[in-house]
């Protein structure tokens, strides 16, 4: 604490959080410059066509798909915060569907292989995934089981040295382009939470059917699939982790997924906030920039406060997670809060843009459409509230 002089506000100064160091800042710079230069120019086109697979190989080449994985598997050996940096900087692509496709690959489908996989599985799937040569997806949700993971019906039945898988999965990001899926199945219908098992399934096996590309409110650049598994035979070596531990392992995976989702939400909210702030300073109405109206000023003050609250909740929680705590309550809070405020901020930014905000050209309505998913995906707001409430014993 400075003892003597009155400090003048320094609103432009860097405000780095204690979890980040210079290396994180360098990483941030290099990801951002890549995203702005090589991805963002295609955003409008990919919104129509979905993004191309070369993004994976290019990001693999740059090392961005393995930031937190050990060097022996081709990763960069970075700490957990590097994953947050990636999630935050991807937002500069202006393409939510792309960011989601990458995040599913790096932070949802591959972490269980790294943590629970055998050496053979890591060589066969993690190494090429980090290089961007194989694309991953994660199969949890089914037509009749969403947030209620325990209600899934996809069965894997043992037959000699093999398992035979039957069932269907839906809302699967990267489902059409993926080379393999980390699949949640039920192996013992009578064992409750101990009856689930994860498998790694090659998507070109007989019986794996990519049924249709799903049309969505937002995230248009992402391919989202309905998948069917009909008598798909996999060897015993396709089991990921222990038989019967699938439910617990996927619950662990969901924590990381929610944390990364929350980071993406805050970054997206900040990004659309910054663009809207510039717009408000240029747009004239009633003889002055709309930013000069007091109600506009207060809207920005409130949005900035919400964004900063969400960011700090994320970073404090990420710090706990990186320290080896398993802060399910805080992660749920961070995910709930960040998803909500991101949608609120995007909505307010549409409002400040007025008619322009409703038009495709200004790319604000797209942000709202893309962000709206966050209050549903990876566990709905209501599931987060259940988790938080039950964590207090009520």
């Amino acid at each position, binding site marked *: *604490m*400075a*003892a*003597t002089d*009155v*400090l003048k*506000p*320094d*609103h432009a*100064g860097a*405000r780095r*959080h*204690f979890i980040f160091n210079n290396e994180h800042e360098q990483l941030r710079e290099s990801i951002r410059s890549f995203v702005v230069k090589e991805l963002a120019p295609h955003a409008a086109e990919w919104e129509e066509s979905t993004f191309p697979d070369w993004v994976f190989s290019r990001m693999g080449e740059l090392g961005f798909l393995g930031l937190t994985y050990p060097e022996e598997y081709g990763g960069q050996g970075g700490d957990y915060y590097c994953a947050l940096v990636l999630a935050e900087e991807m937002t500069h692509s202006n393409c939510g569907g792309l960011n989601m496709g990458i995040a599913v690959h790096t932070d949802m489908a591959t972490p269980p292989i790294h*943590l629970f*996989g*055998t050496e053979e599985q890591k060589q066969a799937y993690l190494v090429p995934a980090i290089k961007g040569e194989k694309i991953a997806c994660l199969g949890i949700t089914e037509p009749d089981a969403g947030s209620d993971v325990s209600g899934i019906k996809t069965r894997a039945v043992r037959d000699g040295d093999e398992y035979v898988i039957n069932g269907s999965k839906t809302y699967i990001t990267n489902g059409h382009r993926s080379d393999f899926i980390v699949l949640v199945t039920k192996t013992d219908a009578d064992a409750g939470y101990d009856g689930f098992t994860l498998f790694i399934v090659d998507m070109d096996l007989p019986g794996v059917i990519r049924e249709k590309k799903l049309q969505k409110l937002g995230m248009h650049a992402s391919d989202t699939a309905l998948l069917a598994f009909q008598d798909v035979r996999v060897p015993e070596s396709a089991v990921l982790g*222990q038989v019967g531990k699938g439910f617990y392992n996927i619950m*662990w995976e969901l924590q990381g997924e929610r944390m990364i989702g929350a980071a993406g939400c805050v970054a997206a909210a900040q990004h659309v906030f910054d663009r809207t*702030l510039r717009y*408000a*300073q240029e747009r004239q109405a009633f003889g002055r920039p709309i*930013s*000069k109206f*007091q109600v*506009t*000023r*207060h809207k*920005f*003050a*409130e949005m*900035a*406060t*919400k964004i*900063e*609250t969400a960011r*700090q*909740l994320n*970073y*404090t*929680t990420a*710090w*706990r997670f990186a*320290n*080896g*705590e*398993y802060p399910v309550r*805080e992660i749920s*809070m961070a995910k*709930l*809060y960040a998803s909500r405020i991101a949608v609120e901020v995007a909505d307010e930014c549409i409002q400040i843009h007025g008619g322009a905000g409703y038009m495709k050209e200004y790319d604000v309505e797209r942000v709202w459409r893309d962000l709206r998913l966050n209050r549903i995906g990876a566990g709905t707001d*209501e599931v*987060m*509230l*259940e988790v*938080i*409430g*039950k964590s*207090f*014993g*009520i």
Partner: protein
Amino acid sequence: MAAAPARAARAPVPPFTAAHEALRAEIRTFVAAELRPRAAEWEADRWFPSSVFGQLAERGWLGLKYGPDADWVADAVLAEELARCGSGGVAAGVGAHTSIATPPVARFGTPEQRERWLAPAIRGEKIGALAITEPDAGSDVASTRTRADRVDGGWLVNGAKTYITNGVRADFYVTAVRTRAEPTHGSLSFLVIERGEGVSASKLEKLGWHASDTAELAFDDVFVPDEHLLGEEGRGFYLIVANFQWERLLMALGAVGAMRAALERAIPRLGGRGQAVRHTVAELATRAEGGAALTHHALRRFLAGGDAVREVTMAKLATQRCNFELQDALLGLLGPDPELERAARDARLGPIGGGTDEIMKEILGRSMGL
């Protein structure tokens, strides 16, 4: 297969350390044993005994951020824990003394002035109040009317102050006065006015904070000697601004403490009330933890010594309305209950005191060039 994810014990979030958590436990025990049981009585009395200052001073808690072992984080712990006493008025009285009235003396006072007011304040022997607001000048301090006219050996002070916490019991008032005629920031100065001839105080009735002696003051030809000028003449505005950040941070910390305490107490009473109640609690807890994360971030920024205006302003804005809404919601779920009613009443001041929510939004908006 890799080992299951390891689970580490919970660590205190920086800037708090294990030592701070030990202090927290100590203060919490004291507050639970000595203050909270009497909160209802003091509420009815519209007064809490000044011996509370002595009790806190005995333990060294009135001087945590002063002297060679100064520790601002420890003072932050005190602010969070005092919020658990169940009386906004008591927390306000102590906070006004440690964090509003004495900081300008510590920072701008001469060694003699610090000896005269700060040292006995830390010992709990003299109680301080900060007197800035006037009946016609609230957030707009440039409109201050209390006059200090030059006389031989000092000043003659005339005017009125209002909403002064500790106003009745205070031994000294750190007072904003106009030492020049023109109504600008440059004519504001600070005088330390001791209780005595020409100084009168009357207690105000309020919505909440009942245990606090919030007062209106009148200065009627009060002679104040030269050596009671705090800082430079005409630099009073800087003295006010210098402590804004800590005052607002303290309010945010107090709200964080109050929200966490209220939830801890309410949750055991809310089991079995159904899903809607579960979700309400989850919503409230999420907002409370968001406020805590933001406030502790602002605290870290403040401690780092750089400009923390934006973070502190956000923390104050984010926590005060939130605290009131939380207390109000718990009252709705569990009331009628005198302690919950008191908490809700007390929390209502948050979005007003220390700069209103609207002022916070103005500061933030302007910080973005709007």
